[in-house]
């Protein structure tokens, strides 16, 4: 069994109007992980996902999804997807919609009850899809994607349009779905969501994959920031207690690359040396900081 479930090489999509939506993306999603596909609106996330499920054809480059070319029926049989929003028939009930999908995917109808239970929609399955709330529609979309018992689940911004309660439920569901051997590719522009759920992330900006690594790697090492006077003496005192390479000076402050829990020890040492400490706080980059740095977006925009 291949160690990666998705592998792309130079995947590029340029639309007829000249817009370069996806630009030479080399992406690798490992089996069994929950992979966060991060990017601001319009970065190319949905286009990349459409390429992966074969809805659109690449201008150049290649991709292997579940061991097959995107759109290949053999590959599609192993992939469940929810691209953009749940798109089902408004005049059919939730259950009938799942029967339509099950027939297409050649899945026995007996599986429908279990996926309805998994997304907690059993009691609402008789209602027409058109009467569902946004959250229920998204959950039924996830149920449709789960029908095949897929080894790869591709979810494109599944919490879009949901209220806080619905978002929390969806996050819980995705975390549950990502347990075991199943691989989940979750696209989102909500950083907190990705930080909470994902093992690894890929960040896409203006069509290019700017980084791909684990959430911990992206955040970098934690540390403690110290603002003290006189700063030279403070650095000298701390250098006796910690390795020299763990201490750096940035913009008139000291950054000590140690666990933030050692803040009290740093404070005590400086106080004992008679150094006035005006600020001492843990330094931990959030995924948000990294994201804004990588995508060149400004916070608050």
């Amino acid at each position: 069994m291949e160690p990666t479930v998705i592998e792309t090489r130079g995947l590029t999509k340029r639309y007829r109007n000249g817009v370069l939506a996806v630009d030479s993306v080399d992406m690798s999603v490992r089996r069994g992980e929950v992979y966060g596909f991060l990017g601001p609106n319009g970065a190319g996330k949905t286009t990349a996902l459409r390429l992966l499920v074969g809805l659109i054809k690449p201008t150049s480059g290649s991709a292997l999804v579940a061991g097959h070319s995107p759109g290949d029926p053999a590959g599609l049989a192993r992939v469940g997807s929810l691209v953009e929003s749940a798109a089902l028939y408004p005049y059919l009930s939730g259950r009938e919609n799942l029967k339509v999908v099950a027939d297409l995917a050649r899945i026995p109808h007996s599986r429908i009850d279990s996926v309805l239970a998994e997304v907690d929609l059993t009691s609402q399955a008789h209602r027409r899809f058109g009467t569902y709330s946004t959250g229920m529609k998204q959950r039924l979309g996830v149920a449709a994607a789960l029908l095949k018992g897929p080894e790869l689940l591709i979810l494109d911004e599944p919490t879009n349009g949901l209220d806080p309660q619905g978002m929390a439920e969806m996050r819980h569901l995705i975390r549950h779905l990502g347990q075991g051997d199943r691989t989940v590719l979750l696209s989102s522009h909500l950083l907190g969501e990705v930080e909470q759920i994902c093992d690894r992330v890929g960040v896409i900006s203006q069509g290019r994959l700017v980084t791909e690594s684990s959430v911990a790697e992206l955040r970098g090492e934690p540390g403690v920031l110290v603002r003290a006077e006189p700063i030279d003496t403070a650095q000298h005192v701390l250098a006796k207690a910690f390795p020299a390479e763990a201490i750096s000076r940035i913009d008139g402050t000291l950054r000590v690359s140690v666990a933030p829990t050692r803040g009290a020890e740093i404070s005590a040492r400086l106080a004992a040396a008679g150094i006035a400490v005006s600020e001492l706080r843990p330094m931990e980059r959030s995924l948000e900081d990294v994201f804004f740095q990588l995508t060149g977006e400004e916070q608050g925009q």
Partner: protein
Amino acid sequence: MIGSIKSEWRKLRQRPAYLVGTALVVAVTVLVYSVNYYQFTWPSAANAGQAALNKQALYPADFVLNVIGASFPLGAALAIVLGALTSGAEYGWGTLKTLLTQRPGRLTGLAGRLMAMGLWMGLLSGALYLGGAICSLVIALVDGHSINWPSLAVIAEAVGATWLILACYSLLGLALGIVFRQAAAAVGLGVIYLVLIQTILVRFVSGLSSGYHWLLKAFDGESAGSLVQSFGTAIPDPHTPPALMTGTEAALVLTAYAVALAVVSGGLIWRRDVT
């Protein structure tokens, strides 16, 4: 393929537009029978003689000739609408992407849809003739007239001819729905083509020298009209021009149209990005 047909059939048989459309065509048949019966039973003094003759056409022996007239243009227009709704709504609802990300390939999915739609057109044709047969039977019983049915072969041929017309025009609607990626424009253009654009083109070609009149045989509307006329008419109308071609020729032209429209639809589904 079986899975695709089952899936498409499940959607069609529960879709209000299909149910209402089928009921509408049957209702129109019943209405036409009822109005004709009233007019031929209680005619004005000037039309009394002709009315008695026309009334003979309402009895079971001629029901096929009455019903087949509903195939074109009324049935064809409805088929265009249903075909356009079938493909166009998938773009509007975004459900095309749901279908294309399931197991069957794009062409298998389309083939399943064509089969299911063809089955529904068969059901619609059957319902039309059943409705006509019941109307004619009721009229014969009310009038105490003898009940003589056409042969089964004639009924089967007529149902087949109606099915071919409906299938061909439903494919036109379906192809237009795919071309425009929506139902509204497809319905509009399809119906305008049927009732206006083609009429203008036929009039234009008819006005050319007789050397070009063979072109008329290439029009789907002329073919459908000829196919209907090939069964004869229950109530002769002196204003109706004679059929341009035989029933077999007409059926071949319509079949060619159906195949061409299926190929165009398949080509578009196969090549196009779904955004």
